């Protein structure tokens, strides 16, 4: 191969804007992406529908006593009943508020601690070991303690959900910050981006996938902690339904409560997915 230098072939003096034609990256065909997304959706919904079908089948054939396991149809009926007689919606409202407030505080505390520990050496040394230790405690073990500390009112419920939500948010935020490619940070430093600007403009956006994973886990945990919290002297909320406080052994009502819990979980997941789509457009652009 001839390595004749091309430098001389160009004219000296003021060069025109240098534009070199390089093949640009193929931006994948849109319609193909869309059809694969549809397939994706079909597959995702097929599983739950098949499970429901199986459940209905077991009940229709009479494999189990309808008193022990009511059919999905029956449960749907009960949910409709509970909605029309005005018990379900207020209960959902109360439960959602508990989970939401607890999540808000827990995630805020967790993310803040995660950022502090991730961004500064001192913060890491001060926080990480204690938090790593505390996180191994199953939060359900705290229920009796929280009852003693906060009583049997709403405070104990908020406190429990908050405490449970801190750790997933903390762990994933911390990991997200630490997972930022040091080479990128180095490049930013070359261009005089440091300190707070570095944290805000480079590290925080790049840690965002981790932070969102943390929020997602915290949201899941908030529903979990809600269930545990609603076992404490509950007079309102979905817990009332599930705990069968009247002792009527209405399994259809209990299952209705469980379905609502599951539904809350799905809603929570949906919220985070959309949050991710909004905040991580730079990441989504590759698929």
């Amino acid at each position, binding site marked *: 191969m001839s390595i004749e230098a091309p430098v001389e072939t160009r004219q000296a003096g*003021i060069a025109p804007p240098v534009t070199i034609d390089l093949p640009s990256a193929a931006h994948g065909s849109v319609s193909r992406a869309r059809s694969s997304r549809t397939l994706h959706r079909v597959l995702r919904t097929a599983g739950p529908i098949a499970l429901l079908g199986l459940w209905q089948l077991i009940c229709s054939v009479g494999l189990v006593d309808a008193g022990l396991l009511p059919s999905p149809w029956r449960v749907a009926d009960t949910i409709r009943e509970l909605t029309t007689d005005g018990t379900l919606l207020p209960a959902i409202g109360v439960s959602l508020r508990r989970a939401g407030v607890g999540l808000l505080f827990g995630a805020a505390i967790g993310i803040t601690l995660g950022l502090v520990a991730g961004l500064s050496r001192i913060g890491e040394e001060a926080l990480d070991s204690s938090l790593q230790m505390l996180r191994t405690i199953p939060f359900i073990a705290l229920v009796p303690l929280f009852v003693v500390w906060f009583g049997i009112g709403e405070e104990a419920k908020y406190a429990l959900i908050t405490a449970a939500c801190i750790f997933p948010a903390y762990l994933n935020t911390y990991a997200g910050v630490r997972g930022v490619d040091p080479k990128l940070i180095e490049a930013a430093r070359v*261009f005089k*981006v440091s300190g707070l600007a570095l944290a805000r*403009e480079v590290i925080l956006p790049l840690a965002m996938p981790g932070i969102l994973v943390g929020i997602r886990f915290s949201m899941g945990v908030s529903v979990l902690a809600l269930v545990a919290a609603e076992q404490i002297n509950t007079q309102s909320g979905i817990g009332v339904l599930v705990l069968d406080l009247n002792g009527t052994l209405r399994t259809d009502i209990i299952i209705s409560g469980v379905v609502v819990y599951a539904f809350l979980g799905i809603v929570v997941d949906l919220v985070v997915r959309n949050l991710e789509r909004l905040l991580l457009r730079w990441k989504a652009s590759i698929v």
Partner: protein
Amino acid sequence: MTTGIATSETVDAPESRDRPAVRVSGGRRAFGDQIVLDDVDLSIAPGEFIALLGASGSGKTTLLRALAGLDRLDAGTVTVPRERSVVFQEPRLIPSRRVWRNVVLGLRGTGRERALEALTEVGLADHAQAWPRTLSGGEAQRVALARALVREPGLLLLDEPFAALDALTRLRMQELVAALCRRHNPAVLLVTHDVDEAIRLADRVLVLRSKRLDSGVVIDKERRAQTGDSYATDLRYHFLNLLGVRGPQPTDRSAHPSDPVQEAHT
């Protein structure tokens, strides 16, 4: 420094009368017991394009990082311009910022227009709104070049910026770098292990070996243009020799009465 090849002529480095843009004297760096740089002297004139050759692990990148302010030297003095830019082997674009926002990274109050100008120079103005992940390797590296040049650096540091590119893209990228360096005229230090690349692009080629830096060889551009391949071939032979790669003598020396290698005077 003795190279085994007679010095026929001494040529001053271009613009050596000016105050040098970069001056390193007595530079020394060790990692543990391993001494990487020892008593290194380097002077780069404003606008001069230096290529630094050396085998892997010879300390080229260590020297570049010291000039970039990313690493320190254990001893010696370093004088560099305030405005320095680096193009790394990888583009190192921030994936969460659109292309144009990557270009003006760290430049407060610098708007889109300035970024677009810089992107036009590298032929990527229409990618200003794109996310870095959608770019090809060559495109991303051109954005990195725009990001480096948009702040009009007094010193441009190129750390094997073509190494990860395919052969065709590499040739085009080299042309682009040569053209843009002539236009913006920063002092340039190109770290590479590609001898041909060094000969093509540089005003002066230095070789880092046994922890030290020689004074370098000034590339006679006119002669390279006139005699073409044979001059470049002789130079390549000379540098490969210095780097410990012993190939056959490329040309009959009697056909070339004057030696291709002219050592720089520092």
